[in-house]
């Protein structure tokens, strides 16, 4: 196990993440197959492969990330090949091969946000949610907090340059984010997790 996988095996190597506890494990259910078929049907016959991206998006929405088992299944649904799907999954930084936390922070690092304090904000959020910023690297830009509640990832432009610095938490965009705003967001997230735990 300690041996690092070769460049080819690394494509599907498991990347364990504490975030997995907040997402269901990938499983091919009749509903999932139904949804995939629905997406494939949007494209003309013979062009099933066009549905690869929509299905990837759906799987990521449902299960948080694209696990190794999902790749051959997506390929099968789209009459494509696993290597083709793997090529797409590894190409887009927005598609995760590792499970993010329940709340995924995307911090813009493009010019406009950088000028309005994006870098400092990044450092502050990292400290606040308890991740080590030094772990963020080119190969693995996403870091998940130990409790799995938070994850953070620097991203390119979030298309709101006039109101930097911008941060996106899951699907919600926050602009002109200050430290105070971060504190509010983080505590709201924590509150939500605590409430959900209680209800269980």
């Amino acid at each position, binding site marked *: 196990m300690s041996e690092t996988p070769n*460049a*080819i095996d690394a494509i599907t190597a498991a990347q364990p993440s504490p975030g997995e506890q907040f997402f269901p494990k990938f499983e091919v259910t009749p509903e999932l197959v139904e949804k995939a078929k629905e997406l494939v049907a949007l494209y003309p016959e013979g062009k099933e492969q066009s549905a690869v991206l929509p299905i990837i998006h759906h799987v990521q929405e449902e299960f948080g990330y694209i696990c190794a088992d999902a790749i051959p299944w997506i390929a099968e649904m789209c009459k494509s090949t696993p290597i083709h799907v793997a090529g797409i999954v590894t*190409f887009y930084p927005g598609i995760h091969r590792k499970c993010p936390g329940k709340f995924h922070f995307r911090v813009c690092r493009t010019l406009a946000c950088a000028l309005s304090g994006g870098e400092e904000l990044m450092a502050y959020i990292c400290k606040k949610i308890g991740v080590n910023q030094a772990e963020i690297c080119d190969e693995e830009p996403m870091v998940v907090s130990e409790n799995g509640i938070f994850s953070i990832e620097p991203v390119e432009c979030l298309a709101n340059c006039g109101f930097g610095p911008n941060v996106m938490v899951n699907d919600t965009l926050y602009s002109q984010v200050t430290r105070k705003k971060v504190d509010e967001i983080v505590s709201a997230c924590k509150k939500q997790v605590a409430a959900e735990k209680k209800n269980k």
Partner: protein
Amino acid sequence: MSTKPTILPKDAAAAEGKVNVQINGKWYRFPKGTRIADACNSVGVHVPCFCYHPKLSVAGSCRMCLVEQGMPPRLAPGATPMYNKDGYQDIQWMPRAVIACANTVAENMGIRTDAKLCEEARRGVLEFLLTNHPLDCPICDQAGECKLQEYTNDYGSGTHRFTESKTKKGKNLSIGPRVNLDQERCVLCRRCVRFMKEIVGEEVLGVVGRGTHNAIACYPGTQLDSNYSMNVVDICPVGAMTSKDFRFKMRVWFLKSTPTIDVNCGTGTNINIWTREQQVYRITPRQNDEVNSCWMPDSHRLNYKFINSEARIKTPLVKTDAGAPQRPSTWDATLNMVVEQLHSCAPAETAIICSARMTNEELYMVRALARQLGVTKIDIVPRKGENDGMLISEDRNPNSTGAKMILGKTGTGLAAIRRGVKNHSIRFLIALGEDVTADAGIPEEDLDTLDYLLVMDHTESATTKKADVVLPGVTFAEKYGTMINVAGRIQRLNKAIEPLGEARPDWDILRRLTELLGCDCPRVIACPSPMIILEEMAQEFEPMKGLTWGNIGNEGKVILDTGVTIPLIEREKAKK
């Protein structure tokens, strides 16, 4: 001095469906729709390419083939085009270069491959390609036939400005039973990906990652195990894909390549045999758009080990007494002995089994020998297999068509010979180029009951071990000759290495035997070479009329209409 041409070149070209293109200052005519790269290469102007391969779809990703291009200026409203004294419009050169692979020629287009713009573009492309290249040429199999190496030498700057650390990727990855991948050497031309997808139809290779981490890979758990996988080694312009068989065996600049044909099936795939000092190191396909395009199956490519095998027979072997072991002998003594023995064989009780793996020239000599001996029981050993829908023919003999032409009906007499051997009505057997215990189906113990067994073959087999006399012939790599493939195309075999040991070309053994047996026909015994035999045959056989060694050429010539087609070639033609 110059008179105005009565008909403009553009109209003259259009009448032929062609367009006029100026390449490096000279005007040429090309059919409409020709790619700029193909047009330039066809007139001897080299355009460097990594990703472009004429048999694959265009990717346009390497940017190596950038050329300067120009067109006549667009006319102002109401203006009429101006023609110079040669009838062409002046060319307005574009400030940026275009890729020669993805663009097609047009009327009055100008191309410059020697312009400063191209020089700069190529230097820039190479500088980028080399930023992450490991520069391990000293241990790379591709060195000597590597496009990156050649182009860097021709167009590169010689120094590089990239001082950052290089991206690390996978090295020496086994991606299939016969192919190894080095992702760092790769220039991401994706020829291998396109080959597997478009020609083989198995999408096992793909590109993963993004930007500097881009790499060719197969999906974990899958393998590049198609019977055509080694073609990716040939089309890889660099040393990213290497053949496990050829890895670290020999530097390519020591090898001599001989154009010849493959003898594993009736397709007669055109190949090059790469040799050094009488040793065969590898076989690669040779382009022939009518036979095998640019490809060949791995099973045929790797079937060359028998040529330099230990099991080759290097001297004539004779059994001096019944039951005695075979002993090496000399040619003269052996042939004289064989002649004596053959004289005592009753023709009615003698049979000849020859091979459709023999060349036309050899079969012609077999026929001469049979006629001299008065033997009528003669046949080849048919071999059938499965047609793989690509290049492998169901006929696993390379020259069945030639055998049929020379010997008449084939494949029908073998059963009678087999029965004859069993019930002792055949007491003398001559096996030429075949292990009769194998595909001919004569059991080994039946051979023991024969009074006389004469064998000519290049490698030890169950048959040669039982033989009273073994005459060492040669393999396809050691001889000249012609064969006719399943589609009726006559093709040449060329000698890549000298016959091993004392072995002699089969046609020469047969000719000498026939001569010693008393044949005085000059058309047989006076033939000094397979080329002359071919000319003799051209006079006798109607389809071969007018053929000479020279006019067959390296591509061969269709001489018979067999109605058989090669699936891969048909698909390629349909695509056009």
